[in-house]
């Protein structure tokens, strides 16, 4: 079977056993993102302190791409400042939405390695929202304080 590069090993692994499922211990904010087209739903639970995001957990009902994207997002933004996390959200979304090829972007985007697993989505545009949904929800969560 041709599994295609979209289902990178890390994506499959994270979708099968997410590392950051659940709710944050000292939760300070939560947010939800839904995709009405497929019923995917991401619930984020966040503990934000003055110096940044202390903890981020999620409960995700969705496809492999969506679950893995949420889990890897949690991993990458933890410990970052709010501004940093928002900047990363913007870069990640821009990277997927831009027309330039994956190869051109690798360096330019300067994205943390794990997030590069989603680059093949550029040729599966119907699935883009599966990966960006958690980042949109994160933007919402961080906006409200």
């Amino acid at each position: 079977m041709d599994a295609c590069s979209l289902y990178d090993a890390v994506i499959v692994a994270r979708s099968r056993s997410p590392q950051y499922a659940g709710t944050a211990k000292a939760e300070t904010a939560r947010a939800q993102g839904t995709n009405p087209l497929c019923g995917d739903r991401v619930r984020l639970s966040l503990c934000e302190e003055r110096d940044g995001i202390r903890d981020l957990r999620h409960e995700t009902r969705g496809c492999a791409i969506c679950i893995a994207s949420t889990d890897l997002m949690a991993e990458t933004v933890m410990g970052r400042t709010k501004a940093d996390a928002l900047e990363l959200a913007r870069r990640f979304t821009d990277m997927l939405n831009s027309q330039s090829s994956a190869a051109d972007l690798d360096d330019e985007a300067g994205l943390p390695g794990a997030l590069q697993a989603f680059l093949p989505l550029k040729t599966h545009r119907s699935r883009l929202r599966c990966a960006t949904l958690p980042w949109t929800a994160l933007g919402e969560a961080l906006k409200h304080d």
Partner: protein
Amino acid sequence: MSISETDSLSHADLSHLRGQFPILSQTVHGKPLIFLDSAASAQKPDVVIDGMAEMMRSQYANIHRGLHWMSERSTEAYEAARSRVAEFLGAGSREEIIFTHNSTEAINLVAYSYGSLIRPGQAVLISEMEHHANLVPWQMLRDRAGIDLRVAPISDDGDLDLDAYSALLSDGKVALVAITHMSNVLGTVTPAARLVEMAHSAGAKILLDGSQAVVHRRVNVRELDADFYTFTGHKLYGPTGIGVLYGRRELLEAMPPFMGGGDMISSVTFEKSTWAPVPAKFEAGTPAIVEAVGLGIAIDWMESVGFDMIEAHEAALTKHALRVLPDVPGLSIVGKPKDRGGVVSFTMDDVHPHDIATLLDRNGIAVRAGHHCAEPLMRRLGLTATARASFAVYTTEHEIDVLAATLRRIRQFFV
């Protein structure tokens, strides 16, 4: 085309038939296309593609308006398509056939126009397995006109609950029943003649959404005694942009127009307009002329294959699918209706239907995944999405075998 006199398509007949669909020889991601999404929209045979192109090349003008040769030829071809559809559905007269742009518009026409005759306190009755096209227009009518919207439940197997249906009709307040003739999710073919009879005995009119049904079975609206019947051209091997509303003449005559504009009037002054007779009253503006002609050609093509053949072939495919798919570990088929057309929805463990669809696509197999424009039905079934394979006259058993084998590998990949 010559097809042998058996009740099913032979291997040679089927490959001849497939040869008439140019798209079926395409490859996708380097694999031969296996198109199992015909319930969303069917592929088109050469005769439809060529016939429409030929019309635009040689005999095209606006209809009903020009006093010139070209306009007369176009008008004739368009009106011939109407006659063809009337004959296809067994309508009492060609004036009972209204061309719309799709099934959705046909249902909206009835909801708006016939709906304006329904009084507050009266009700419209739909079912739990409606496509959004046969649900949202009635909700809009309810909110606009203060009528009641009732929903007949289905069983866990996906059959309409006839006792509940009967109970919902029993107070005589239902003015109109609007129900699918075949579910696009479960494949359930509803007992239309019974539903009509029960509706009529309760004093209700009935609309049947035939978008899926007409593709697979011979339908005769007079035998069914339906008041309204709708379908859409693109699922019937015809083009997009053309749909059909059949309506009983006396009902259509009593109904106000849906849209205003050219062609639907008999006289216009600034004070007042009077309406053209049916069907023109409901066909405001320049219609989908070439598409109507394309639909007529598609119907001719189906008749040349023969409905007995189509039914037998698709029944065999469905039976085959219901035998091989449940053998795939973790796969469960959604619903078990008594009478099922060639639509099979399924889930596979907790592999999300969108992942299934993407991975099938990488292997050249096109299926639909999602809620299939039937969210309330999904909720009733306790699901958020399913994958759906749907069959057409050009589908082969081999394609279903490849689907099953590929699903096995997808599951191994995820588990």
